[in-house]
């Protein structure tokens, strides 16, 4: 028995099996919730590399699985990642409305989480790029539910991810060549350039950002939200491990500046798109692009930035979750998600639109909400770096806030319409309210989040 068997193969098997039960969506959801909870608890309590008693048997859980000479390792130090990923899945499963979200979300999202864990655990790590290609295939199916044509954004997403995989595999081969010819700066520069290109495709760094806005505009808001949340988290985890294990930092290279440059470009792109967006979906895309930028800036701070990054992940999940369910519910009342159609929606459906506003403003970094203390910490960390980085950081945040104010203006506009249509079941309205309260609470008690994220990053970097 090994940890990859329990946390990768077993859930993958469960995901495959549940594809046969798509008709029974409520049963699927509840059993998924139970299974997710078991996975999270197993991540918390299962001892690794120690003999323990399970029912009648004495079991020893090994941390690695060997397949065709390659190792898949999930050690004790990787526990936080396992718990984080399965908790995210559990969270999205908990907030999904089975009436409005395609049933295949449950098995495919679980398979996606397993593939992220596989990419993270494989050794040598560059094999992970291949698993991201499989993940892209699954996410394309998820974003193209039955009865819907595949959108151009989804196809572009697929193309970019496959190209990214090819570049990373090639760069990894070049890097292995450098070991034999140590000191070859030309080869090192070439492989770094190709690697950067590969990760730019995977992380949708400018100019490869177009698919984000396209997907957020045309695809199901809940599915898009989930994919943005987990895909980029997976790529960041994989990338971090790639850099740490590949010894890229130890080569005496300055990778901080490229990270910050990419981060600033992404953040400013997000800010600019938010200013000019006239569509609720595109606004979500703008925030996601900005979040990728902030994540890059956080990781550029290395040890000091990891707790901030994981704080952002937790916050992003809650905010995107509330935004996505609110948008999914709102879509039932308005025919389109552009600003014109959404005008005055706050007067008709105040609870649902409050989810949109709080989710957005949290990610924009408005004071008193959960995002503010985390972005403040990020800004403080960046204050030791050149002024232009800090200036763009502040200006882009203002751009995001401006986009939110426009959204507020549109949603509260008196469109002179009256509707007796009640959107969302009471349980979902309470859920939106509850998540709103949570976002405000995090704003007041950020130390709770930071305590968790510091533990996560200590465990990870300690490995």
């Amino acid at each position: 028995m090994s940890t990859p068997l329990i946390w990768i193969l077993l859930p993958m098997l469960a995901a495959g099996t549940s594809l046969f039960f798509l008709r029974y969506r409520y049963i699927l959801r509840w059993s998924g919730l139970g299974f997710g909870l078991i996975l999270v608890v197993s991540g918390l309590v299962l001892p690794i590399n120690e003999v323990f008693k399970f029912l009648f048997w004495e079991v020893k859980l090994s941390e690695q699985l060997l397949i065709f000479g390659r190792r898949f390792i999930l050690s004790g130090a990787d526990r936080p990642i396992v718990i984080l990923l399965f908790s995210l899945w559990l969270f999205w499963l908990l907030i999904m409305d089975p009436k409005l979200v395609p049933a295949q979300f449950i098995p495919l999202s679980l398979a996606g989480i397993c593939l992220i864990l596989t990419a993270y655990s494989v050794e040598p790590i560059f094999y992970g790029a291949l698993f991201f290609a499989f993940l892209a295939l699954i996410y394309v199916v998820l974003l193209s539910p039955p009865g819907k044509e595949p959108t151009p954004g989804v196809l572009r997403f697929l193309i970019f991810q496959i190209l990214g995989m090819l570049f990373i595999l090639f760069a990894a081969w070049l890097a292995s060549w450098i070991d034999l010819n140590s000191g070859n700066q030309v080869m090192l520069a070439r492989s770094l350039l190709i690697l950067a290109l590969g990760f730019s495709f995977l992380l949708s760094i400018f100019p490869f950002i177009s698919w984000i806005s396209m997907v957020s505009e045309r695809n199901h808001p809940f599915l898009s939200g989930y994919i943005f949340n987990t895909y980029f988290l997976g790529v960041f985890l994989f990338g971090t491990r790639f850099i740490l294990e590949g010894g890229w930092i130890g080569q005496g290279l300055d990778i901080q500046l490229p990270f910050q440059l990419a981060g600033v470009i992404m953040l400013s792109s997000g800010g600019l798109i938010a200013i000019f967006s006239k569509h609720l979906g595109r606004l979500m895309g703008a925030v996601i692009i900005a979040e990728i930028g902030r994540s890059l800036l956080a990781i550029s701070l290395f040890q000091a930035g990891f707790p901030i990054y994981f704080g952002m992940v937790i916050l992003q999940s809650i905010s995107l979750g509330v935004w996505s369910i609110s948008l999914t519910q709102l879509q039932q009342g308005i025919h389109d998600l552009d600003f014109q159609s959404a005008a005055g929606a706050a007067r008709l459906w105040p609870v649902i639109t409050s989810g949109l506003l709080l989710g957005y403003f949290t990610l924009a970094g408005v004071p008193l909400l959960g995002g503010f203390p985390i972005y403040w910490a990020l800004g403080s960390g960046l204050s030791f770096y050149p002024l232009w980085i800090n200036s763009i950081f502040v200006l882009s945040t203002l751009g995001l806030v401006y986009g939110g104010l426009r959204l507020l203006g549109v949603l509260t506009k008196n469109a002179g319409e009256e509707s007796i249509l009640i959107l969302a079941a009471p349980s979902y309205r309470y859920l939106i309210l509850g998540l709103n309260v949570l976002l405000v609470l995090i704003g007041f008690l950020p130390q709770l989040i930071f305590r968790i994220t510091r533990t996560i990053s200590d465990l990870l970097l300690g490995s």
Partner: protein
Amino acid sequence: MSDLLQSLLLALLFFCGTGILIGSSRRWMTGLLALQYVEVFLFVSISWPLEIAVVKLVAGWMASAVLFLTYQNMIEAEPESWFAANPPGTAFKGFAALLVGLSVYSLVPLALRWFLGATSQQVLGGLWLLGLGLLQLVLSRDSLRIIIGLLTVLSGFEILYATLEASVLMTGLLAILNIGFAFLGAYLLIASNLEENP
């Protein structure tokens, strides 16, 4: 394999890649794709043992068969002539393919410095497929063409990568990826006709 045979294979590979790009009939496209995989297999077999290289052929043919069977069973009619009813478009694609071919040819001496264990035909073949596949991806919005474009890009990469590394796991994963692309293409073709849920 002799130089002459490799050069002949190369010419056939370029013909297949260009044919897939400019052809409008789905049947022809799949047929050429299956033929392309034969050439990919032969190029890979220069660097790898035959029993591992044959995985590329089997996976490629499976992928082609999946795609072929899917639209064979689709109700909607499709143009069955080789060329589309759009001669300027076809001419443009053909010209673009020629340009890609020429520019890749000029890059071969440089590329040979990177792929030390490869023959010039292998490098040229791999780069041609990469270029033609990318061209397909750039010029098309149709999901089937995009999938075939990705399969072509992956084939080019596989020829080049085979000259660098021979790993069983990598070969297996790339084969699964090829078949995965085909299944995805099949799903995307029929997705809009499936029963909507919810």
